[in-house]
């Protein structure tokens, strides 16, 4: 496991210093009932994706995780290769593999239109399809930042 992790680190940082980007969305919900406290619910959902691309409009390795509210300790982890176009309005796409401790392994593909507000801040709308493992289709806004 450590060897796989080290190999991935080497791939990320070997040939060039990438333009690191982080994007995603998170939400919190707490509901408490006056007369049914056993129905109280506490939820935290996190979806985050990191891009280790050559620049903000290049290609490279990405990694993401998705931790839904009711399975927050069981995250779906994805590693893959993505491509991103340049400009104020851009497209990004990628393919990779995913693993979830409860649902197993699967393949992931995503396509994402986006808009860049400034040199650093952007918003994208990925449509993420996973076959096998978590077997899901998601569409949601990602708030992103280029470092």
């Amino acid at each position, binding site marked *: 496991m450590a060897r796989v992790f080290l190999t991935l680190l080497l791939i990320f940082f070997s040939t060039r210093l990438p333009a690191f980007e982080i994007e995603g969305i998170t*939400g919190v919900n707490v509901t*408490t*009932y006056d*007369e049914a406290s056993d*129905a109280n619910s506490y939820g935290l959902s996190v979806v985050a994706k990191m891009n280790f691309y050559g620049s903000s409009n290049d290609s490279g390795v990405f990694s993401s995780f998705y931790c839904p509210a009711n399975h927050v300790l069981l995250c779906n982890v994805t590693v893959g290769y993505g491509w991103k176009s340049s400009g104020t309005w851009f497209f990004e796409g990628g393919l990779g593999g995913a693993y979830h401790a409860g649902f197993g392994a699967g393949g992931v593909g995503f396509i994402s239109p986006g808009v860049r*507000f400034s040199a650093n801040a952007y918003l994208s709308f990925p449509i993420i399809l996973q076959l096998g493992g978590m077997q899901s289709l*998601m569409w949601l806004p990602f708030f992103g930042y280029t470092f």
Partner: protein
Amino acid sequence: MLIARASVAAFILQIFLSAKAFALAELQTGILPTAQVFMQADLVFSSHTTLLFGSDTISFGPYYAFESLSQNVMDQTYGAALRIGHETYFEIDGGYFERRFAQRHTRLKGQGYSLNLVLGQHFGDHFGLALIATNKRIQSGDLDARTIYDLLPFFTLRESF
């Protein structure tokens, strides 16, 4: 009834005409749409809309929120908003809140209040981001009394006129 409608229309027209008297008149919607097919299909759409009048320092106006939280649950809030700042802003908004729950043979409604604290940042003339902390309270009606807290990011679209 006709007179009442005419006076409401006249009032709305008056608001729009008087908008020119303010340094700032701005229509803004914060949107958060998500769709997910995982075990079941869920489509969530939340929107917070304000029509604000005032200056770059402080503005005030009506507020409406529409949220479709699942195929069965719809939230609506009718109220007012107060905003401090413009490009980067702090806003407090809220008002009368109602939640409707509907299934084939069931129609339930609960009422209460909703209060939001908003931190926002505009990027250019039309786009922006907002972080909205919400407190909703269902106090009466068919649904069990409850207190709800949400913390969610929204992207915003605005138009000044």
